[in-house]
């Protein structure tokens, strides 16, 4: 067998084809490199937050209130965790029903023109910087009534509303038209069809969409800055009409302190928050993908 390059009809690419293949391979390499870079950055962030945060994690961190004074030792962030839960809970109570209703209107009842208007408003709201929403709630509510967890929750609800509404609308559109038609053909009125046939079959998608919105809201800092407590207090206050602390505000405040003990607390709080957010958003995204496949196929 002679060497292929010396054969009269070489199968090995040469000249222009060879260059095209080289370019092809180079571009493939670049794409691989870009994907690897993104995953590496994610790994670096997760590992560096994890390794610094895990050291400061102990039982006290979850069960004690924040330490006071100039040189605090020990203590935890119990009330920041509780505060975040209350803030996000109230925001969900406001945004979930509103979001589902808006989605029903847009996908089931509105005329195409009104639906487009509502959809556009939702997308624009979604694009508004969260700090601007913070300023808005401040001038609307806080300027007159003072800081409260409730004001913070309204800020978060404005952020969650378009997310929930758009996610719900998307799954409502996935519900097969044949289901609606079957129900209507049986003489069921339109509102019953919507509430008892269409919405229940979209329920899985609504729940995962809401979970995604919760994950997003739990990690928000900017809209809370001037709405609920920035200071660190140690008393057990659970009244949503008082300013409450939140995990994100604790991280923001402690990150600017020179004290290594407080910085360690910031890392630990960041670690918990990141775990919660990454876990819930990953789980709900997987569930949503599965759900979509089920409805689509």
């Amino acid at each position: 067998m002679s060497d292929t390059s010396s054969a009269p009809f070489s199968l090995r690419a040469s000249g222009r084809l060879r260059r095209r293949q080289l370019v092809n391979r180079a571009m493939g390499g670049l794409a691989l490199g870009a994907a690897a870079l993104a995953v590496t950055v994610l790994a670096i962030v997760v590992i560096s937050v994890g390794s610094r945060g895990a050291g400061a994690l102990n039982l006290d961190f979850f069960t004690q209130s924040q330490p006071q004074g100039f040189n605090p030792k020990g203590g935890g962030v119990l009330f920041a965790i509780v505060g975040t839960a209350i803030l996000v809970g109230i925001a969900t109570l406001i945004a979930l029903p509103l979001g589902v209703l808006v989605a029903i209107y847009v996908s089931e009842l509105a005329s195409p023109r009104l639906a487009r208007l509502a959809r556009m408003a939702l997308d624009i709201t979604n694009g508004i910087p969260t700090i601007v929403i913070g300023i808005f709630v401040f001038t609307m509510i806080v300027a007159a009534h003072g800081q409260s967890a409730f004001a913070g929750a309204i800020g978060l609800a404005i952020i969650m509303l378009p997310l929930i509404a758009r996610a719900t609308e998307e799954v409502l559109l996935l519900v097969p038209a044949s289901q609606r038609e079957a129900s209507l053909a049986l003489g069921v009125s339109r509102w019953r069809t919507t509430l008892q046939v269409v919405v229940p079959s979209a329920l899985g998608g609504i729940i995962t969409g809401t979970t995604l919105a919760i994950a997003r809201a739990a990690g928000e800092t900017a809209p809370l800055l001037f709405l609920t407590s920035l200071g660190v207090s140690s008393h057990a206050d659970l009244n949503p009409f008082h300013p409450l602390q939140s995990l994100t505000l604790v991280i923001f405040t402690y990150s600017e302190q020179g004290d290594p003990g407080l910085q360690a607390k910031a890392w630990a709080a960041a670690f918990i928050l990141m775990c919660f957010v990454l876990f819930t958003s990953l789980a709900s995204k997987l569930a949503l993908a599965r759900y979509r496949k089920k409805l689509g196929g």
Partner: protein
Amino acid sequence: MTISHADRTPALKRTRGWLDRLGDPALKAITFGAAALAVTVLGLIAYELVKGSRQAFHAFGFGFLTSQTWDTIHNQFGALSLIVGTAVTAVLAIAIATPLAIAIALFLTELAPKPVRALLGALVEMLAAIPSVVLGLWGILVLGPFVQDQLEPFLNATLGFLPFFRGQSSPTGILTATLILTIMVVPIVASVTRELFATVPPELREGALALGATRWEMVRGVLLPAARPGILAAVALGFGRAVGEAIAVAMVIGSQIGIHWSLFGHSDTLAARIAVQYNGAPTNLTISSLVYLAAILLVISLAVNIGAQLLIRPIDSRPRRRRIALDRALEAQGLSAD
């Protein structure tokens, strides 16, 4: 034609009670109310920002946009250096992020082995889920020292002949903020671009490959042109995100007024300035000036979002057809019931 009109009407009345007859308009009214509220909130935001910035607007007018001063002691405010800081960080971040994101999307749709595609895609999207305050903390304490000790000296040594890469190395500043914003923007652009690539009809790809194009030539000749308007929209959305990010940028940019060439130096952005100064704002005019900044941000985000939607609209209109078909079917049913 044996059933008379008189026979049919009572039967319909029995099956549809008063609840059913009230239910349709009621559901429509309630959902319409919710949608109207969502639209109203948008209007209210604009109204409150205009109202809150009125004092600063009276004091400085549009000169606010062209003045560099930000002096809380003498009550002189201008947004120019903040606008420049915002533009520089956001444009640089999007310039780095766009090619990266397109490359990632290509890898995820074209090159990655099928089993790992979903996993890799989820990992890239997780990058977008990291809370900005966590990324900011990481930026101060991990990325900052790296930028100061490695990246900036390296850039200074290799590209120091340019004015952008001169000056004192520092853990905080424009470069660190740009990198943090890049990390935030890449997954947004990548996930949209990926979905766009997935919607390009397989016949087009296969046709190009069958004609002897290499995979890259197929990408350049078929995928990228087909996805171009969508990619532009994704870039616009990413830009909007970068412009509006307050917390992470406030933590790493150094909060300093002034315009200079070096990327190593401190600067500030519109959103970051609001985040840092609003709570401790000493005078009403300061507060009003900060609301003015928020109004500028709102205008930018409106322009960016509406622009992006105009680009996306032709793609977005497909699922509606199904709903219109259903509407027609319902109307037909309504006619037959009469």
